[in-house]
């Protein structure tokens, strides 16, 4: 299950990541801003795309905590179980 969510998150992130090499070794600990070099504005696009893709709502406080791929996957899974 987590692999599917992870793959879907990576697919969402891919067009926004400026560091394409980092995408080859992307993992739960990969950070959006530093490792993948996603700009903060594009991170907003990613979070909104995640909301649309998974049918969840991410509030501002939760959004501030999405720093890594793993954090995004964990948030999605926790929202889906509720």
């Amino acid at each position, binding site marked *: 299950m987590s692999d599917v969510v992870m793959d879907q998150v990576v697919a969402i992130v891919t067009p926004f990541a400026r560091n394409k090499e980092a995408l080859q070794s992307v993992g739960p600990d990969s950070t959006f801003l530093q490792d993948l070099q996603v700009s*903060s504005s594009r991170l907003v696009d990613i979070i909104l795309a995640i909301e649309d893709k998974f049918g969840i709502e991410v509030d501002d406080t939760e959004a501030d905590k999405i720093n890594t791929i793993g954090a995004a996957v964990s948030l999605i899974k926790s929202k889906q179980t509720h």
Partner: protein
Amino acid sequence: MQSTFGLSGPPPRWWGGRPRAVTPIDLTFRTRSKLAVSRLLGWLCVLPLGLLIVAIIRYHAKLKIRNHAELRRQFLEICRDQRPLVICANHLTIMDSVVLHWALASMPRYFWNYRLFSWNVPAVENATKYLSWRIITALSKCLAIDRAGNAEHHDDMLQQISFLVSRGELVTIFPEGTRSRTGRVEVETGTYGIGKIVRSIPGCRVLCIYMRGDGQFAYSTFPRLNETFTIKLKTIEPISSHRGLRAVRDCAQQVMLTIGQMEQEYFLAHPEFSPAFATAVGA
């Protein structure tokens, strides 16, 4: 003069008008003091430094602005409205801020009413590139931003900008985030900081500015010598029916779309200045 040079206490009134709608945005004493000192230094230097720079612009670079007097009249008219105002402009050269300051009001006017002299948010690598630039940015209401900085740094910058705007100060930002690499307004890749600012200050207006030199076919470091600029102003009040980040994006996109629309109007009115036309005639 107000305590801490106009940056503390209740939001000031301009021209004796009604109070503006503001959200309390507080900063640490240290940050407020830093802003206040920066403002005071800028005010003290606006005449000598400003007049020197204007002399260089006018008599060395020989830059000109179409309908300059009318543009300044429009700007003053817009600023007479008491509500908070952020200036958002397209970005093609690193001189854009300087040209805009010169374009919008005279240095004596800025000295008389220093609130009209907007704060700027230059990239730290530009602000510290040369000693002269370092001095100018230190003395001209600048908040240098590290574009590669972490989220905390960007949030801190947005807080400072929101604080200043809520206090009646003007802040100029370039929502494209960098000089347009295509030479055109890139609506799709705009940053969303302006959306956060607008959402944090009820009633906040955005003065969208489209500026372009006749010979500015792509981005560059400086405008060409003898350049003539066309500058257009349009004020909007972005609103969104969405919430949270979606509202932030929505408001920011309204600003970018407006500037993009102003660019289309510019090229419709001046097809001879379009990059495609220049390519076609081999300019």
